[in-house]
């Protein structure tokens, strides 16, 4: 397909990578979503890129916070008891 034949509203890869988040968030208009999906279907590179973004998001979701230290447990137990006493007064 030459540039001249390309429909004027076709997205190029460089635009697609900027729309990935809006696409995944469901924030694109219907028309833009169709343009986006049309591009993805025809472009293995952007398909790979979209998948990379999905993997990145799911890996980020696997980060877990650290466990509570024994010292912190004691501290928070004391904090709670102090509050209960206040309430009891």
């Amino acid at each position, binding site marked *: 397909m030459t540039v001249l034949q390309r429909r004027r509203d076709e997205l190029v890869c460089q635009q697609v*990578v900027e729309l990935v988040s809006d696409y995944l968030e469901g924030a694109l208009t219907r028309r833009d979503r169709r343009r986006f999906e049309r591009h993805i279907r025809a472009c293995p590179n952007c398909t790979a890129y979209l998948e990379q973004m999905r993997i990145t998001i799911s890996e980020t979701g696997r980060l877990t916070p650290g*466990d*509570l230290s024994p010292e912190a447990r004691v501290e928070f137990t004391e904090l709670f008891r102090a509050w209960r006493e206040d309430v009891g007064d």
Partner: protein
Amino acid sequence: MESDAELLARVRAGDETAFLALVTRYNGSLQRLARTFVASDAVAEEVVQDTWFGVVRGVDRFEGRSSFKTWLFRILVNRARTTGVREHRHVPVDPTAPAVSPDRFDGSGAWAQPVVPWESDVDDRLVAASWGPRLLQALDALPDRQRDVVVLRDVEGLSSEDVCAVLEITEGNQRVLLHRGRSRLRAELEAELEARGR
């Protein structure tokens, strides 16, 4: 596992173990989020303590209109903000920076070189022991506001609506920050995989 609401009801009734269960569930998350607002772990710890104090004091006033988690994070963000101006730990990054470096594209805006798919075995490599710290490092290197949004959305799993409520930003603003942050993390991940050799 008991729901937050169930635990909260027991906290109201004065149940210490229920309170500790909530603390255990969320303290790490609060610590991480607090750390994005203040310059040291020590100050972050103070903010987190203060947040839990706010929880026990406010538990009777919490009406359950938002989820407990959203309410909790809001308390933290408010405390963190009043603790002091956020110190800039990082060189500010151009907020309009593209998701992918322009030199990866040709003159027509198409990829200049093929994008190599991350094979399914990549997943195993990503969760390798060395990966978690690397991703945390990349997260930490994000500009503050991008990091806040990515942490709340992708690490903590809050809805976009809740993220906007917690950080008091608009939906559009949230999406832009999320996009920049996620794109940056993807790029870091790609660089890491290349460094390890595919």
